[in-house]
């Protein structure tokens, strides 16, 4: 078995605010293999974005801070690196793309420049001309038509979907080993969404790039990921290969999530079942399982003890529940 590309152990990222300490990511552990596509799913505020930002160490500080754990990338604990060492990693070994393509590109530079800039930053041996050529290459790769001419265009001359492709081009320009994509298609139309996801999938296959895909949309995960982490209230509550998540979800939350989405093969007239209640307050999380207040299967043990990820008896599938499905 290939060694793990990324190993996150007991990661804790807290936000120190005037109202108190928000435990946005509280003891999260997972691994990623080279070339693997991992989906990180959960509702708003569950900590998935903060986890991603922690891996690339772009958490806004103040008020956020990684207070514990380790993040091993290629065997090295990157939490021990200083910011300057991190700038070596970012863009070249670990890249990230963000949710809103309309504001993620700098309006005063043309797109070719913004791609070439990454190349020149990380490959000192490359000349300006070569960097520009690479930029055009990348635009071609992400299927921007007429790449050579459009490289000189400014971001405002592109549509949302195309801007996201430009972002992908920037992120992959130096052939990183890990691409973190934080809700890359949420702001796009559904048809464009599909195109962009297809593109990411294809490129990741072609270049062997591992992808951490963050989303709240289970449908997105189904088509693209091999492994899925489900997060809730700052922790991972289930982790399994994608097929198992959909066919035999273990944690009641995952079950609830799946039940609340409409499916093509649902019976006509059947109702959607939303999950009642709200996620817990991260300023003051309750003792015990964070899902206890909303869980239909809750028992007294759940309110007192916080369950850790445990195997549920179906291969690699693990869930943080005392009474999984």
């Amino acid at each position, binding site marked *: 078995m290939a060694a793990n590309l990324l190993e996150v152990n007991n990661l804790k990222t807290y936000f120190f605010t005037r109202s108190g300490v928000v435990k946005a990511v509280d003891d999260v552990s997972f691994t990623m293999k080279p070339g693997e596509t991992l989906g990180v799913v959960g509702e708003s505020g569950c900590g998935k974005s903060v986890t991603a930002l922690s891996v690339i160490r772009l958490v806004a500080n103040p008020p956020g801070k990684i207070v514990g754990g380790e993040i091993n990338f290629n065997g090295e604990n990157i939490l021990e690196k200083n910011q300057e060492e991190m*700038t070596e990693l*970012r863009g070249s070994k670990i890249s990230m793309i963000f949710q809103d393509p309309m504001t993620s590109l700098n309006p*005063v530079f043309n797109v070719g420049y913004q791609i070439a800039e990454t190349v020149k930053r990380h490959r000192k041996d490359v000349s300006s001309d070569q960097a520009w050529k690479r930029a055009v290459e990348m635009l071609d790769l992400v299927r921007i038509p007429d790449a050579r001419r459009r490289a000189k265009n400014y971001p405002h001359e592109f549509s949302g979907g195309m801007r996201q492709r430009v972002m992908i081009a920037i992120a992959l320009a130096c052939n990183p080993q890990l691409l973190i994509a934080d809700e890359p298609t949420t702001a796009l139309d559904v048809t464009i969404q599909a195109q962009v996801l297809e593109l990411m999938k294809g490129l990741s296959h072609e270049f062997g790039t591992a992808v951490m895909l963050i989303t709240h949309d289970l449908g997105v995960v189904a088509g693209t990921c091999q492994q899925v982490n489900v997060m809730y209230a700052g922790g991972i509550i289930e982790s399994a290969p994608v097929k198992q998540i959909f066919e035999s979800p273990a944690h009641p939350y995952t079950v609830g999530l799946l039940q609340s989405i409409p499916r093509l093969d649902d019976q006509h007239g059947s109702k959607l079942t939303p999950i009642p209640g709200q996620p817990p307050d991260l300023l003051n999380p309750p003792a015990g399982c964070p899902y206890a207040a909303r869980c239909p299967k809750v028992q007294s043990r759940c309110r007192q003890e916080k369950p850790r990820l445990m195997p549920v008896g179906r291969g690699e599938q693990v869930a943080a529940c005392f009474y999984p499905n």
Partner: protein
Amino acid sequence: MVQFLVKRFIGLIFVIICVTFITFILGFKAPGDPIRALLGQHFDPQTYAQLKHQYGLDLPWYQQYYNYITGLFRLNFGYSIHYQGESVWDILKAGVPVSTELGFWGLILTIVIGIPTGIFSALKANTWVDTLNMGTALILYALPSFVLAVFLQLLIVWVDKWTGIEWPVSNWGNPWQYTLTDIQYKLGPILVYSAVSFAYFARLARTTMLEVLRQDYVRTARAKGLLERVVVYRHALRNALIPLVTVIGLSIGFLVVGVFFIEQIFNIPGIGTTALEAISNRDYPVIQATTVLGAVAVVFGNLIADILYSVVDPRIKAE
């Protein structure tokens, strides 16, 4: 871009026409009869009519206005009433280089001191450096220029009393020349003159920079692994400068007004002093001329700012 500039230019012509018209009407409707004031108590109707004709004041108002406008193009602002026979331009001529020098350096200082201070404050937001800068800026910004000048002069006088170091508090030295004495004369007024403006720019630069640093594309730049100083000075700064450039155009307006006060307090022989003198002498042609000059300077400054803006912001450039 050309379309944008042409539109602006036409707008500005319209503004100048309005300004000249208003100034003209004010002069026309001004109370008091300048010819009579000139001639004093006793005069005969013939001399009166003669003078009136000489100054063209017996023509209907639209004709007077027409003459005025056409005269402007030839830099003919008419003739002074108070200084009989002298053309207005001759009177103003001496003051123009002085006032422009004052304005020029004032603007330069404003940009060169104000903007970097603001940016620096933004980068060190909420530290003592920031508080100090913004505190000083706030005070300088709120103080009227003549009060600031007063404090400066008091300081100079005080320093003189205690250390015997002399420093001139009035007059200007030679326009556009920079010997040591020239610099001594000019430093105080220029500093006071630009103080208000540069405080404003410092505050604005800080707010703009902070706003820009919060943008998504700055986060993207960091995610690309660019060094922090590249992120700040290449990505953030360029964007922050865009609104600042437009404001430069606006501030020219304040500079023009500031000229009056600074020249008065420091006894600088520029256009402002001439204008104030003309006001107390009821010398309308001179007053009109100064106003028109001032308005033209403002309009011109705005045009330059617009040009700069269209150069700096590619969203305009490409149109």
